[in-house]
């Protein structure tokens, strides 16, 4: 109940020294979860000597890969000022459709249509993801429907589509090419970790050093102004939504390889985690702010929490409670570490 407005306090102080300091702080906003990660590391180290083994840490890393690809997609979309809830269904439905198009139409527990050769499974899966993004983009940008509800509808619809196509089964007999990326190891480290790191690096660099990457911040910050500056707002937004669908489909490929089958509820309920990770990592829900590095720390925080809780042997009944509590605590720390209100 603050009676006094806090509007434009800063505009009263016309000086640049404080502006400079504000800026320094703001740069560290992306690092605000680093202390949380350190604390988790220390706790992990205390509760179990197994924590700091490369086995354990690589395990945590690989478990984080699929979620982090989704978080990458959502972070890009959020930075551009939009939202996509349907990613959590795309991660499941895109592989199912691809495999359904590819698998032979007889002889196995799950039969497909056999329309395409097996090696096309990955490109098809990515294409399906991109198509989903494109359709969402059409509904949001052309028909001007509310993006939150469109993608919420899409979330339900696509999950339904997956159930309908797969008849609710997990699909085990997927083509080997489809399974490779999620299960291979390169130089002793899961391939998925390398790929994820590469994706974050590439996208992070694009956001930091390329004009079209910077355009996302401009669009998310003030779409009208971006348009006035000559940025093709709708086109770029559309591309970002398509890219989001594509990344989600790619996460689906990693998931399939990692867990050995296309599971019937692959990604179900993940969108909450995706949002939690992205936002505690410092990406703004209102667009135009945040970095991929921050988002990555968000994923790692959530994943480490699960790991540490398991190592510590938290009573199963209290698992979920602690999960929620930690989201809120991380949010509080990130708010005070960055010193910024989150509205």
């Amino acid at each position: 109940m603050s009676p006094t407005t806090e509007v434009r306090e800063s505009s009263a102080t016309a000086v640049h020294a404080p502006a400079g300091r504000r800026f320094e702080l703001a740069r560290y906003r992306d690092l605000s979860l680093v202390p949380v990660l350190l604390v988790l590391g220390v706790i992990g180290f205390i509760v179990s000597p197994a924590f700091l083994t490369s086995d354990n840490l690589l395990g945590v890393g690989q478990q984080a890969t699929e979620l982090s690809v989704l978080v990458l997609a959502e972070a890009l979309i959020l930075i551009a000022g939009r939202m996509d809830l349907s990613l959590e269904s795309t991660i499941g439905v895109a592989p199912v459709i691809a495999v359904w198009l590819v698998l032979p139409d007889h002889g196995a527990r799950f039969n497909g249509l056999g329309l395409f050769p097996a090696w096309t499974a990955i490109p098809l899966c990515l294409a399906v993801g991109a198509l989903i993004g494109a359709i969402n983009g059409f509904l949001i940008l052309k028909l001007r429907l509310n993006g939150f509800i469109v993608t919420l509808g899409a979330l339900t619809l696509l999950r339904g589509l997956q159930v309908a196509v797969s008849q609710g089964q997990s699909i085990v007999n997927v083509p080997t090419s489809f399974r490779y990326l999620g299960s291979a190891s390169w130089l002793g480290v899961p391939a998925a970790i390398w790929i994820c790191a590469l994706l974050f690096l590439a996208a992070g660099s694009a956001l930091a050093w390329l004009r079209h990457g910077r355009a996302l911040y401009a669009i998310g910050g003030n779409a009208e102004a971006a348009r006035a500056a000559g940025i093709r707002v709708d086109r770029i937004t559309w591309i970002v939504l398509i890219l989001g669908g594509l990344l989600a489909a790619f996460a689906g490929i990693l998931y399939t390889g990692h867990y050995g089958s296309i599971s019937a509820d692959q990604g179900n309920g993940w969108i909450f985690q995706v949002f939690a990770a992205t936002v505690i990592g410092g990406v703004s829900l209102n667009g135009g702010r945040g970095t991929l590095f921050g988002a990555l720390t968000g994923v790692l925080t959530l994943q480490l929490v699960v790991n540490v809780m398991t190592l510590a042997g938290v009573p199963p009944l209290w698992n979920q409670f602690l999960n929620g509590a930690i989201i809120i605590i991380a949010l509080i720390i990130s708010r005070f570490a960055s010193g910024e209100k989150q509205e």
Partner: protein
Amino acid sequence: NRGSDSTASGSGKPAIGIDLPRADSDFWNSYAQYLKQDASSQGLNTLPVSNSQNDVTKLVANVQVFQNTGAKAVVMAPQDTGAIASTLDQLSAKKIPVVSVDTRPDKGDVYMVVRADNKAYGTKACEFLGAQLGGKGKVAELQGALSSINGRDRSEAFAACMKEKFPGIQVIELATDWKGDVASAKLQSTLAANPDLGGVYMQAGGVFLQPTLALLQQKGLLKPAGQPGHIAIVSNDGIPQEFDAIRKGDIDATISQPADLYAKYALLYAQAAAEGKTFQPGATDHQSTIIQLPNGLEDQLPAPLVTKDNVDDKSLWGNSVGK
């Protein structure tokens, strides 16, 4: 440096990692309690029990922790039978045997599957209902989630048996996603359209029992068994609430899914596995049979049909739990 704290609860026995599939259902909580009792009464060395909240990715993460903390055997109940495949491969590469409870993984080596046959549940329910209705009428089936293997097995067996043995009975399938309120809403719509509904098959008593009873009560359709207008109800799980309902005549039967035996034999096989024992297909000493699977063995535990006649049988786990 594996196994550094594997002797936490001591006595030099091999460490067993146990993952619970979920903490929000009566059945699985009973299972968890039995596990705890049995483990401590037998002085087993269990790692901290984890809970994968019905999420296979959490299950995999937890299993990885077991691996890293020196488990010599793992007990799990993968609700997603496909997505556990690569984890099973990994465990078998590390020579850690797996006991899978309640579900049979599609792929990957398992030491032993401990479960009652879900197809048998469906068939038993069908046979009982068909007999009650005299082979004709309408039956509503409250299914689980379509993506659940157990639910699907029950549905398929129920449908197949009805088609074969009671072609005069019309089955109305209602998908509920294991949600009581959805089940209630759909059952209500079905009752409006089919006032002559003669029977209900609930695939999970823990979820559907109370909502169904409340609905029938409100509509004045809850007549004790034997009275005209009684709707025959077969449930599944064997939790104490179902037994109460059978005693009162609200429902007719349930299939007791043996939570106690699940826990008991899961631990027994895990311990045996860790000690390097092996088993052969064939009859066992506890009224069950071990059968050979492509990827391991399966001990098919008995899942008795419970009716008014045997509801007070002390050997039913629903009569001994919780009190």
